[in-house]
């Protein structure tokens, strides 16, 4: 299965994602420059974390105009798997591929920390290998993870089972309903604030993050 990792100017987790797919998941992976317009041949696309365009105006706001985002849109519409991690999640929100918006963390500080999240929906392309309600130990590292959506939107997310991950026991950033990760209605676009690529090897303190990538692989292999 071929994975692609998008590089926006300012992405800084691109190499980490690449490493995990290649060295840990042992799957083919290529970088995708933000100006490319063709995603042919990829089975899954990762929008990595970082500070695209410095996040100078609003997180993710400028990156979503990158040429590659048109292609990502199309790729998603055709059912391709797209995962946005941290800044990648923020870009997906700005691009309208996922509902809602990000506010600054409640304490106004960047927070880098291992947190616990609960797998709320384990029937997705990104979480099918998690046990129902499994608690995952995955680190966060962000300034803006305080997820916001209006009440109607929240109802919809709940009704359609779109909340995939919730912070467990401790909500680090003030996000609504403890949301840490959501999926689109079609089930092929996931955004999550925690960094699964930072917790895919025991040496780094947890392998729980690997479950996300492995689930994607599982889903893709079954689909074939």
């Amino acid at each position, binding site marked *: 299965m071929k994975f692609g990792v998008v590089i926006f*100017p*300012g992405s*800084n987790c691109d190499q980490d994602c690449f490493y995990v797919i290649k060295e840990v998941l042992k799957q083919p992976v290529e970088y995708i420059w933000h100006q490319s317009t063709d995603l042919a041949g990829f089975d899954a696309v990762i929008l990595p974390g970082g*500070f695209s365009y410095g996040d100078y105006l609003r997180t993710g706001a400028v990156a979503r105009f990158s040429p590659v985002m048109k292609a990502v849109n199309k790729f998603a519409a055709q059912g391709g798997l797209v995962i946005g991690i941290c800044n990648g999640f923020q870009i997906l929100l700005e691009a309208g591929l996922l509902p809602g918006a990000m506010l600054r963390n409640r304490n106004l*500080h*960047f927070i880098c920390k291992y947190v616990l999240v609960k797998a709320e929906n384990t029937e997705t392309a990104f979480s099918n290998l998690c046990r129902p309600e499994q608690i995952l130990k995955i680190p966060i590292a962000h300034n803006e993870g305080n997820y916001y959506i209006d009440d109607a939107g929240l109802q919809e997310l709940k009704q359609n089972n779109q909340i995939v991950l919730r912070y467990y026991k401790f909500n680090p950033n003030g996000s609504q309903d403890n949301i840490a990760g959501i999926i689109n209605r079609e089930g092929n676009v996931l955004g999550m604030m925690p960094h699964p690529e930072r917790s895919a090897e025991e*040496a780094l303190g947890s392998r729980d993050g690997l479950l996300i990538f492995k689930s994607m692989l599982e889903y893709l292999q079954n689909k074939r």
Partner: protein
Amino acid sequence: MTTPNNCQALGLSQDEYQKITALIGREPSLTELAMFSVEWSEHCGYIHSKRMLQLLPKTGKYPTLIGEDSGGIIVDDLAIVFKMESHNHPSQVEPKQGAATGVGGIIRDIFTAGARPIALLDSLRFGSLSEPYNKYLMRGVVDGIQFYGNCLGVPTVGGEIYFDQSYNGNCLVNVMCIGTAKKNKLSRARTKGSGNSIIYAGSSTGRDGIGGCSILASKEFKRGEEKRPTVQIGDPFTEKCLIEATLEALATGYVTGIKDMGAAGLTCASSEMASSGHTGIEIELKGVPLREKNMAPWEIMMSESQERMLLCVKKGKEKIIEKIFSKWGLNAALIGKVTGGRLVRIKHKGKVVAEVKADDLTSAPLYEVPCVKPDYLETVNRLDLHRLAEPKDYNQVLLKLLGSPSIASKEWAYRQYDHMVQTNTLVLPGSDAAVLRLKGTRKAIAATTDCNSSYCYLNPYRGAQIAVAEAARNLVCAGAEPAAVTDCLNFGNPTKPDRFWQFKHCVEGITSACQFFNLPVVSGNVSFYNESPQGAIFPTPAIGMIGIIQDAKKICTQYFKKENEAVVLLGVSKEELGGSGYLKEIHKTVRGDAPELDLYLEEAVQKTAREAISKGLVSSAHDCAEGGLLVALAESCISDRDNLLGAVIDNLTFEIRPDALFFGESQSRIILSCKNSSVPKIRKIADKYKAPLRVIGKTGGKKLVVLNGKRKPIALPLEDLSKAWHKSLEKQVSL
């Protein structure tokens, strides 16, 4: 025209002016004078410090690299490049942007060497947090470091923060950066090959910080004085693109030399590259991308706009290099060429505005500085322990020490730093040293910064030796073998003889300790004029140290892991309290002599701990530093926040005053915990190296208890310890 007034404004003395005139055989032009003024400043020319710095050892166990802007060691086929640098004065007036641009500067020093930055550490000093301005400084500095470092994706994995009155009015912000590269991929900051092209890359040039380096770095602050330097806004996004573009450009093999434009900008980059490359250089300023109108040639030469690089590129390959930079959205402009001869020739629209020998610019006059032992030492070194009342309640003392800002957990700061990006951080902040794996190898490196400036104030020579010994000890506690050193020497005004004495003795102390441990000093930085109206800061020779771990699986952290394991003390506790955190926090005085340091004992203790860790015999290792034995024990109990684990210490020898035993800061001590069955094996190792070893208790329970016969001088629930230690800093920096 050049006038004495110009000279004064530029910080040049009449003497220096005469010298310049003699060197070039005529009156210098304004541009030339400006160029000399920055090159002959302390910041670029090291005019007061160079002679002393030549003492520092340059060789050690691993081959060393001493580059123009940084240095490092070679381990197998990998070069590990690192350096520490200060940004004290800008941070004192604009803490966030001052610290941010400081991070930017040191990172550029690393990637210009061709190395990818893999970690940052920050060594910070502030005045007392009871003053609102110091809170503001600390919040701003930490904010600036997180803003810049996080955005770049370089993890900030360690550091230190201390507080002392002497930093009121002059905080210290020292940042260390580590980078790695394949050893044959390193680049140098020098020109090469007459006819090759000089390319300017990165942000455009404005009137930023003109004269900032010489003027800011060489004038002390007077409180209330209206001194408004143009502090710049850090632009980490551009720097991130610059890192990627530069490394990509270097990978082509067409870049024969590269230097960042930091202090003294284009002047420094062009003249130092030419001087190191033994060539001439010719630059046409018309080609420099400008962002302000009507900039005079001297302004362009002096500008310190951030995020810019100067490259020497093989003739004919300019387009390839320019394309890489423009792909990353950055300027790249051909502005000159390497010439035969040794002249730096600067033209502006065809007209020559400066023409001087590169070596004249870069060989600033060095000053012999008078040096006199400071008067204060005689008084402060006196400490009569008999007059010092022993506390009644040791529990209260311990809690108070744990909550004192210099000792309390620094989590408030490092929580705000991305310390995990790049996925190499095996030991996160919160232990004695950070550990980073080297992907693609079995090895890891450990890194730390250390300096107890109270010791350096009381005894500059020994204080500096201790900084080296303690840094090494911290690395050893992580399982590493100390390998190389960088330093950042922060002192007062060097033209005052007593300040220079402190400087001299500290450099000698570092030299002797490094020689003893066979550690090279591969890079460093000097920051003078750290003074406020109350006087100079405590001498603060911050030591950054790197250690090598052969097997990344054999690493160690400072917190207790399992119930019922033995707690072992390596080293000896002496009756000494001079310069201790206990004296400062409880008795409100910084007095006495720095603790003794027996380098042979230090070596024995370190070797024992390292061998025991590498054999997998050790569960935790933590050195005794500020706050002494009990603070170290408490930290081992509580520093893994989610897994507090108590201990019962029932086998201390109460041969010395209990306060000295509990809180004295005798050097060369490490606390280990291990399986009971490992004790004999560790004892054997200790015997081999002649390191004193004593089993002092065992882990377990929900309290830290110290028994003296039937009495319990210390018995505290872990929650109380944890609350005092974890929450204190956050409480004290909040408004």
